[in-house]
């Protein structure tokens, strides 16, 4: 009996000690596929070595729509997780509703403002206060190509839009699908955005998709964007509607198609298929967008918690995500590049190095622009409205570029 009492009190005591020092972080994310899950495992381990417990709140299903519904319910009922994978403008929405916590003290201690480019921190801040932590940077305006197929068709890898069409004609004549594409609204928007970046240039791209400047949205240049975009349709096979992006990437891998315009998450598919960058596949900037960088950032927004220990754990999580160690492990797995510009990049492949170099250079030159297709440029409302116009135009064989531009300007104004 005596023994039992001692045991019980020891247990109670250790329990109390643990409570006093360590908190629990509950993290909502949808990184459930192979490499992603591994990276999350690393984060979990790093937190546990600091004495905190990690409670996984993984919701499967790519885009995280179901996860968002769960999150909304929990937030309204006053029981949000410590951190949730929320992106781009949605961070501002959540912060505006008063759900997010202030991370300025962590940011100041860790010197985030010095190591992370201002374009990125702007997305993470609400009214100048940090409310979210960036995890990685994806470059969206990439062109993935299969050089063996190009050689077979006697075509040259394109660097401009004109070269793209010349090469595409040659490839088509050789019986190869020039451009692999999945006909889903976001993929249509991804290609559209790459064309827009080339034709409009970084400045007008920002005016159109970030500031919603009516003059640019209804300009002749925009008509040109739609016309070029429509021309690309001729180089895509007719089965594309509804196809997933990774199946389109698979077509490039096995040589059925020559190119794909897709963000650098496509690299993961090539690597998983045992292909070597520079040899079996090449990564080029999307035609005409050399030196420009459309960014897509994954991030964790941090919610307001009431338990003091959990707040400590939450701050530790925020700090850990931006440490060079985690940034390296995570981004090697995910195919993206670290958010920190002061990283040792020796373990990364040529595509990532290229991406990092462009990221830094474009940050200086003003060519670093947020991705419209991936929710970094504008609110979900405007993004949805643009999606509708773009995808409807692209799938209509009789689409008229001028009409599409009028419609674009109108819906953006209505959704603003």
């Amino acid at each position, binding site marked *: 009996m005596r023994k039992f009492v001692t045991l019980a009190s020891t247990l109670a005591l250790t329990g109390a000690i643990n409570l006093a020092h360590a908190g629990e972080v509950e993290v909502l994310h949808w990184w459930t596929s192979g490499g992603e899950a591994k990276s999350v495992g690393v984060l979990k381990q790093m937190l546990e070595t600091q004495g905190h417990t990690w409670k996984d709140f993984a919701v499967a299903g790519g*885009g995280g*729509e179901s996860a*968002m*519904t769960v999150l*909304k319910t929990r*937030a*309204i009922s006053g029981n949000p997780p410590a951190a949730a994978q929320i992106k781009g403008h*949605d961070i501002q*929405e*959540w912060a505006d*509703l008063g759900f997010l916590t202030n991370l300025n003290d962590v940011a100041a201690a860790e010197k985030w403002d010095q190591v992370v480019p201002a374009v990125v921190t702007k997305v993470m801040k609400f009214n100048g206060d940090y409310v979210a932590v960036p995890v990685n940077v994806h470059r969206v305006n990439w062109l993935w190509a299969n050089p063996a197929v190009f050689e077979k068709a006697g075509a040259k890898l394109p660097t401009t839009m004109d070269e793209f069409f010349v090469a595409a004609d040659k490839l088509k004549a050789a019986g190869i699908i020039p451009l692999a594409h999945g*006909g*889903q*609204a976001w993929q249509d928007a991804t290609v559209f955005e790459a064309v827009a970046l080339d034709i409009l240039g970084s400045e007008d791209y920002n005016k159109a998709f970030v500031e919603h400047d009516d003059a640019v949205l209804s300009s002749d240049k925009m008509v040109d964007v739609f016309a070029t975009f429509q021309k690309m349709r001729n180089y895509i*096979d*007719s*089965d*594309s*509607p*509804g196809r997933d992006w990774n199946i389109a990437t698979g077509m490039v891998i096995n040589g059925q198609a020559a190119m794909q315009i897709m963000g650098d998450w496509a690299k993961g598919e090539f690597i998983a298929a045992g292909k070597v960058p520079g040899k079996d596949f090449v990564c080029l900037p999307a035609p005409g967008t050399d030196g420009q960088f459309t960014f897509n950032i994954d991030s964790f927004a941090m919610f307001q918690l009431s338990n003091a220990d959990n707040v400590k754990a939450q701050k530790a999580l925020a700090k850990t995500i931006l440490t060079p160690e985690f940034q390296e492990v995570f981004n090697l797995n995910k195919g993206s590049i670290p958010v920190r510009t002061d990283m040792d990049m020796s373990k990364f492949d040529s595509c990532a190095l290229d991406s990092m170099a462009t990221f830094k250079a474009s940050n200086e030159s003003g060519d670093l622009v947020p991705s419209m297709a991936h929710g970094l440029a504008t609110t*979900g*409302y405007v*993004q*949805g409205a643009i999606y*509708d116009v773009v*995808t*409807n*135009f*692209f*799938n*209509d*064989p009789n689409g008229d570029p001028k009409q599409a531009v009028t*419609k674009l300007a109108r819906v953006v104004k*209505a959704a603003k």
Partner: protein
Amino acid sequence: MFNILQKWLPKIILSPSIFLVTVCIYGYVAWTGYLSLTHSRFLPNFKWAGLLQYQKLMENDRWLTSCINLLVFGVLFIVISIVLGTLLAILLDQNIRQEGAIRTIYLYPMALSFIVTGTAWKWILNPGLGLEKMMHDWGWSSFKFDWIVSNEMSVYTLVIAAVWQSSGFVMAMFLAGLRGIDSSIVKAAQIDGASMPTIYWKIILPCLRPVFFSAVIITSHIAIKSFDLVTALTSGGPGYSSDLPALFMYTHAFTRGQMGLGAASAMMMLAGVLAILVPYLYSELRNREQ
């Protein structure tokens, strides 16, 4: 004491379900109606907007497309599955061998969810994978069936898949109705020298009026709430050419954070259901009383 209990017992027994129905159906309908009059976007908020959301909805091309699609899909789906179901039921009613087995084969698609149906038909109809490729591989290279990737025809693929799934169910309903008809009426008509088609057309089918009623009600509500089929089969694409109101509502309310607009579209769908069902119910129920 017993009398009091007898008087109150039905009310006591029914009250939980009445309460649940009131709150979980009519309560939420009212709540949705209220949301549709507010500026709700990301989360519900209560800033009054009047009819602004409805106005936005009416100016939305995608909404108009989805309403037209619903009309096309609904009418074709209801008419074809009822005609086909009735025909199958009549043919199966001719005292043939193995009727049980055949009935099971016809009825089985109903056991699959629309998600499975949609996914299977997505593969069958995909020109690069399914029917068209098979015909090409068999040497019929001019065969063309690419409705699912065409923005003008995609809505008809929904009809194909929905009819495939539901006509067996309609058949089962009609078969049950046919079995309920007094065979002496048919015998009497036969003695009078009427042919089988005439007997069906003039006597049996008019007797099946209540079955028609149920079939229309059930298929029309399948059509209006259609969400899983279109999600699995075309996801509303290519573009938004095969979008339906239910998908529109879900997209705007839950993924695009336009809850007010989504609520407005939900109310419009409700209005659509009422516009079809109320006159029909009214006429059917009044006839029965007479």
